[in-house]
């Protein structure tokens, strides 16, 4: 795979699943 394709794939997965993980962390943090 080309470097640019790998970078874009990481951007896509990073923002979506990274965002979901961050939200989950906030939710768990709020619950204490």
């Amino acid at each position, binding site marked *: *795979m*080309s470097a*640019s*394709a*790998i*970078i*874009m*794939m990481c*951007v*896509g*997965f990073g*923002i*979506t*699943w990274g*965002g*979901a993980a961050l*939200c*989950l962390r*906030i*939710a768990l943090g*709020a619950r204490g």
Partner: protein
Amino acid sequence: MTQREQWGSRLGFILAAVGSAIGLGNIWRFPYMAYENGGGAFLIPYLFAMLTAGIPFMILEFTLGHRFRGSAPKALASIGRRWEWLGWIQVMVATTIAVYYVAVVGWTISYTGFALSGAWGEDPKAFFFGEFLGLTSGALELGSLRPTILGAVALAWAVTWLACVSGVRAGIERAGKVLMPVLFLLVLVFTLRVVWLDGAAQGVNWLFTPDFSRLTDYRVWVAAYGQIFFTLSVGFAIMIAYSSYLPARSDINNNAFMTVFINCGFSMLAGVMIFSVLGYMAARQGVPLSEVAGGGVGLAFVTIPTAINLMPMPVFFGTLFFLSLTMAGMSSHISIVEACISAFMDKFGWSRKTTATSLCLAGFVISSVFCLGGGLYVLDIVDHFANNLGILGVALAEIFLLSWLCRLEVVREHANSVSEFAVGAWWTICLRYLSVGILALLVVLNLYGDLTAPYGGYGSTELLAYGWTVIAACVLLGLALRATSGRPGFAVKHDASLRGES
């Protein structure tokens, strides 16, 4: 007055909302759309649209349901009785989608069975259009009923009925808690296996290699916003109904962010899965990817079965793939039907059992049209009009109403007051200007396209009979239901603060 049903847990609500958003489109629409619109570069407008339109719209719908504790007609009637019609048109659009969407779910159920025996044989195209659908020569020749499809559609309606009639907690929430984890597991297993096949990496490379020159084409941005509006189940009554079952002390903003992120993340995963298969198929057949790449019904029922024939363990892969489609389709169908059920229960005070049973039975009867030999044509036309004019039209009307005729700040204050984190003024700006502008552009472009060139090469009689008439029926039935008197107490508490009158 009886207490409104509530979700049993936050996880249950999120899984149900994610289950509604994740549907067949995530698997067969997003990957090809990304590939066609600049590959990896498409992710830039797509993710931008997700942040500036998808998340703000989701927060708006969650807030409406949570604040007014009612389905779309009730929520909109609570803002002002004169807006109830919009909620009913949304429900009618949802009903239209429910009756044809279930036909596709019926196909995926049938194909799950076919995968076990490899029933599509060496020529999946001939099998799908000929033996399975019994496709007639045109949309005006409806042909005869296909018993296999009718049986599968009846099964899909029965599952939806069972989930809806059992109630929010015991039915819909439980279905989400089973369907979503199983769907993710199936797609993950399938993807982790297919990425190691010869040519799969090349397929994924094709999907994600960016062509940044495409970013200057406004159509790519329009396609990205369109995909976001379609994929999230927003704008046609579903998310308002689902969030109306939230307890008073519930987060809104974080739940909306999570739902959207998971939905779009799933689309990425589906993209890797589909393009791994296409890359493998192209490599095995020695043809360029452009020859095998595609989307929609052709991808799912012709291209993928052809690829599965070439794979090791075709029974395993075939069953996994079509079971995934069935799970994704079922969870979405349950949510669409629930949006309609909750609206009728709110307005007329009917019991859940009566409403769910009547709607599912009526829905099944109407769905049988799509089980005829010419059903695919009818489905194609109805789908085109329901999506491109129906959903986008009512979504535009809802955002315009809330952001230009009401005080959107009140909605934001409500969401922030119960959420784990607050959204700033960007939320208002995104909805008031960006979402309204882009949706208006989409509606105008689609309307212009449909008025100047007949969709899909169909004749004007077919388009009039199955397209324009269905849209007109949605509007007229919506207005009729608005005019019908409901149970006493329906939306009597008008929210003057939202209209800027307090």
